[in-house]
């Protein structure tokens, strides 16, 4: 998109902010025990206040209530969604995004507040407003915009019973992502097992990774002054020589520092995930995973021994175990 096209597009989408997506939607069914039971069967929710009339009557609820997580369900459009979904303002807005290449859609967040328990006989009406459209963002999925809608739920008396904020990303899928997904979808019914993020191999470090693939942990050595260095780089920091060779590490060392990675959890990595700076006996340090021990067993100075091993289909790495 040229800057002018972007400006026109953004003016078009921003005109939707603050508008109701359509007339308030009154639920087709009032809150009722049958739909409650259908829901709790699937979610495996056995709380007696949803289904056991006698228990619920004696509880602090004073009778059957609907699971709060059904709030949005009461006003859903239903089967029309897979036939001819009603063209409301939200779908109209999404079509504008689609027409400009932002064809991807991904729900990213919901936040729901429940103001009171709903009971059989309650009538729920949803009022949805397009509340906010973010600036253009670059995300892992591609460039796009976050659209936030706010739905207010009211009852038969016009009183608020809950509120939900829903955020979706409308994005232009990355070519790479789309291709990867298409190949997954086409190749098999099962997704490929996730693998670790692969280390980039460039002019200065490919040799080191190739040695790892052969099961050897190498340390670069300056041919001018003999100083060892890691990670691999073209010039010695001590004598400025660009001549070098390498020695094979004994894989013996100790923990110089370490941390446990909690969040976000990346697919393809084992948890708990321990990362350490390992001080090798030869004198250089490297960052590697600790394996074969629990987080609480690790300490600075702990003796470790490395093992160059295959961790998934694509990657071989040195892992360090308690010595």
């Amino acid at each position, binding site marked *: 998109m040229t800057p002018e096209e972007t400006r026109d597009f953004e003016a078009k989408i921003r005109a939707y902010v603050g508008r109701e997506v359509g007339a308030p939607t009154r639920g087709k069914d009032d809150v009722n025990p049958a739909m409650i039971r259908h829901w709790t069967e699937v979610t495996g929710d056995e709380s*007696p206040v949803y289904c056991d009339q006698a228990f619920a009557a004696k509880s602090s609820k004073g009778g059957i209530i609907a699971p709060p997580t059904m709030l949005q369900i009461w006003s859903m459009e239903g089967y029309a969604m897979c036939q001819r979904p009603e063209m409301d303002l939200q779908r109209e807005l999404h079509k504008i995004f689609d027409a400009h290449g932002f064809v991807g859609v991904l729900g990213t967040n919901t936040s729901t507040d429940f103001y009171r328990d709903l009971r059989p006989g309650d009538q729920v009406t949803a009022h949805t407003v397009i509340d906010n459209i973010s600036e253009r963002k670059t995300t892992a999925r591609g460039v796009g915009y976050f659209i936030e809608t706010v739905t207010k739920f009211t009852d038969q008396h016009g009183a608020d019973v809950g509120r939900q904020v829903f955020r979706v990303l409308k994005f232009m899928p990355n070519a790479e992502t789309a291709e990867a*997904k298409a190949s997954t*979808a086409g190749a098999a019914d099962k997704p490929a*097992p996730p693998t670790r993020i692969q280390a980039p191999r460039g002019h200065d470090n490919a040799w080191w990774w190739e040695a790892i693939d052969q099961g050897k942990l190498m340390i670069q050595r300056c041919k001018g002054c003999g100083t060892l260095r890691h990670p691999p780089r073209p010039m010695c920091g001590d004598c400025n020589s660009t001549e070098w060779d390498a020695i094979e590490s004994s894989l013996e060392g100790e923990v110089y520092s370490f941390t446990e990675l909690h969040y*976000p959890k990346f697919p393809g990595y084992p948890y708990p995930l321990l990362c350490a700076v390992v001080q090798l006996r030869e004198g250089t340090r490297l960052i590697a995973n600790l394996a074969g021990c629990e987080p609480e067993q690790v300490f600075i100075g702990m003796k470790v021994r490395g093992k160059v091993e295959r961790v998934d289909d694509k990657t071989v790495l040195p892992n360090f175990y308690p010595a």
Partner: protein
Amino acid sequence: MNKTTRRYGSVAIGEKLPPLRIDITSGLIIGGAIASRDFTPVHHDKAAAQAGGLPDIFMNILTSNGLIGRYVTDWAGPDCTLKRIDVKLGAPNLPGFVMTITAEVNAKDDAAGTVDIAYSGDNNVWGTHMSGIVRVALPKEA
């Protein structure tokens, strides 16, 4: 089935909730979509899901919400009241995956009588499916 309700005073920040392991099946995904009246094709029609770039149908947000709601109320008991569910959505849940929900109490509000549960639902294939906070009110007296 838990018929005993946790009291506000008996809950401490840092308390861990028992983990819950849920087998994600086509039945759970489709059953959850239909029971929540969500007929969006990607939740029941594999071809539609594949056209969208995923290998199979995937769980709708309402079912994820329902499962996390159930997880917390199972622990808190029948007299608790759910106040808020925040969900940050991550990797989709597909048939054949296993999702494990773990959580701990991370805040208490004495005035409101509510506790905040920080949870994470992680599937074994693509990682975190959902994470966030559930706020639940607990009775103060026995």
